[in-house]
């Protein structure tokens, strides 16, 4: 996936100066969202950076994997940064923020516990916004070849001659 722009072009210090931290591990600046330690950054063209940050958090809350870094969740929702999606995303994030405000928080990204964010999501589980997000994540997250090794999955094997000589029957514990 080429959706993530490496921050190597500018220094981390420079990037961090241009953005503000909005939630656990996420920061936004003008026209981009980034990891709060500036190891990755992603430009947005249509969706406001803070809305994109909320989507990334929502993606992690739907399919939380402690060993999968934010940049992969960012890559999974990057496709929503489009002219046709931007109104739907703005409405959806507004609904997330309203639910968070009903619990006394400034916005969704400010809700500190996953459990509480998940309660917010359960409350909107039947909405088309949630279902569209979840449905897209199934491929957006798990069909990313860069994510596969994080789960041990090895992907294609034909070019390596299959597993006939590479451990198709290598377990010894049974």
């Amino acid at each position, binding site marked *: 996936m080429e959706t993530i722009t490496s921050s190597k072009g500018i220094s981390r210090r420079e990037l961090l100066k241009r953005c503000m931290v909005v939630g656990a591990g996420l920061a936004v600046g003008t026209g981009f969202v980034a990891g709060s330690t500036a190891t990755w950054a992603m430009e947005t063209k249509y969706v406001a950076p803070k809305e994109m940050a909320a989507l990334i958090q929502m993606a992690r809350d739907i399919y939380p994997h402690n060993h999968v870094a934010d940049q992969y969740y960012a890559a999974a929702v990057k496709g929503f940064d489009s002219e046709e999606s931007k109104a739907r995303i703005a409405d959806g994030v507004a609904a997330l923020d309203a639910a968070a405000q009903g619990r006394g928080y400034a916005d969704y990204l400010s809700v500190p516990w996953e459990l509480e964010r998940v309660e917010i999501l359960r409350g909107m589980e039947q909405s088309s916004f949630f279902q569209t997000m979840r449905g897209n994540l199934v491929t957006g997250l798990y069909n990313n070849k860069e994510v596969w090794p994080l789960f041990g999955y*090895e992907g294609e094997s034909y070019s390596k001659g299959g597993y006939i000589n590479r451990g198709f029957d290598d377990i010894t514990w049974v």
Partner: protein
Amino acid sequence: MSAKFDLNDDGVVVVIGSGAGGGTLSNELAQKGINVVCLEAGGRHLPQDYQNDEWGSFGQISWLDARTTSGDWRVAKDFSGLPAWIVKAVGGSTVHWAGASLRFQEHEFKTQTVYGNVHGANLLDWPIGLSELEPYYAKAEAKMGVTRTNGIPGLPGNNNYKVFEAGAKKLGYKKVHTGNMAINSQPRDGRPGCQQVGFCFQGCKFGAKWSSAYTEIPKGEATGHLEVRPNAHVLKIEHDKSGKVTGVLYADSDGNKHLQKARIVAVAGNSIESPRLLLNSASSMFPDGLANSSGQVGRNYMRHMTASVYGVFDKPVRMWRGTTMAGIVQDESRHDPSRGFVGGFEFETLSLGLPFMAAFLNPGGWGREFTTALDSYENMAGMWLVGEDMPQETNRITLNHDVKDQYGLPAPNVHFDDHPNDIAMRNYAWKKGAEIYDAVGATRTFPTPPYPSTHNLGTNRMSAKARDGVVNKWGQTHDIPNLFVSDGSQFTTGASENPTLTIVSLAIRQADYIAREMAARTI
């Protein structure tokens, strides 16, 4: 060389579909010197085109035309536009099948007699028995190179099988082995042995698995009596005033329509498209569709009682390595009503890659309950549960006039409600499957719901009496002597075994019959 026949050649047999039924029938007829035009809706994809990539392959070869669903089955909720996961390509679903090649059991041809009256089930005995099919099973096994037949050794068991076998044996199961598979365990018939690639469902790139795409079809073409036309989507079967079929109307890849004349038409489009074509071919003479005087066209849709169990262990399994369906436990395939249901089921190993596991483990699931399962993907073993489901008249393919396909024809609606017997069998099978993994130390098991149907059966059922079904014991329609059905939609009942071997056997047998009747000029 491949033959080329004129559209106006009314001496040819037109076979619609090129999978296990249509591909086999086309080749068998061509070998006898009978001229065949095989019309295939999909394109010609061969091993070099197949992709070791689940979603990539899905987009490449799946039948994705408009379809709708209804009924209480979970597929209608989770995959409302995808009732079946089958292939649109030369070779049909033999491109993505797993290769399990099992003979039906004697009693499975006589379910009405053996199971008795099962409320709500439209059980019927087949008009043929095992002994009548045995010679053809033997021919099919030889043709397909089925392991553990004809002196062909079994495949080696992979990691997924090792876990499965150890658990099954601890539970006391006896009929545990690496299956009767139409996958070469050693080079045979110009194709190599299995290289344990692990993408059987995406098309075997080594060609070790039997598929009509690269066995039956090229062999038939080599006779000079078979022309396969890919991207030829049949829209309608035409007939004359006497009620005999005369040809088929099809659209080519550019959407241009052609009428291919025929002496005989054989329909082999799988159990959703075959009845749909008969229904879409309604005329003033046959207002309810062709061959439908019984009203049974499209009814008794069966999809097998299916489900899966995945087990998580404290050590790696890496189930995706090697043959997808790497072994079987057959002890539960017997008929034993003391278990609380009629008919039986098989346990067969199965694996999904991470992308499909995310989509199918618990469709719609999310949150940590779901993701902690995938966190253990590397330590997961998997099995499929496949058993006999009850035919029900109300489970059926109908025309949905509100939804049209790309040619403007009504899309098929697939209605399915689980029968209480299906539910009882599934619950029992889930429990036993989990026990297999628990016996070897599973830390967590998942009773996984049915995937979109891969075994689609029964919608043009075979019957002794014309009023009970659509085709006779040769697959010839009761109503129209030169119209045949040559796929799994002929099945009177579904049995507990994977259907392909029986479809191939019936096609070989049907070819003998058609050749005999053509020679006698009765059709």
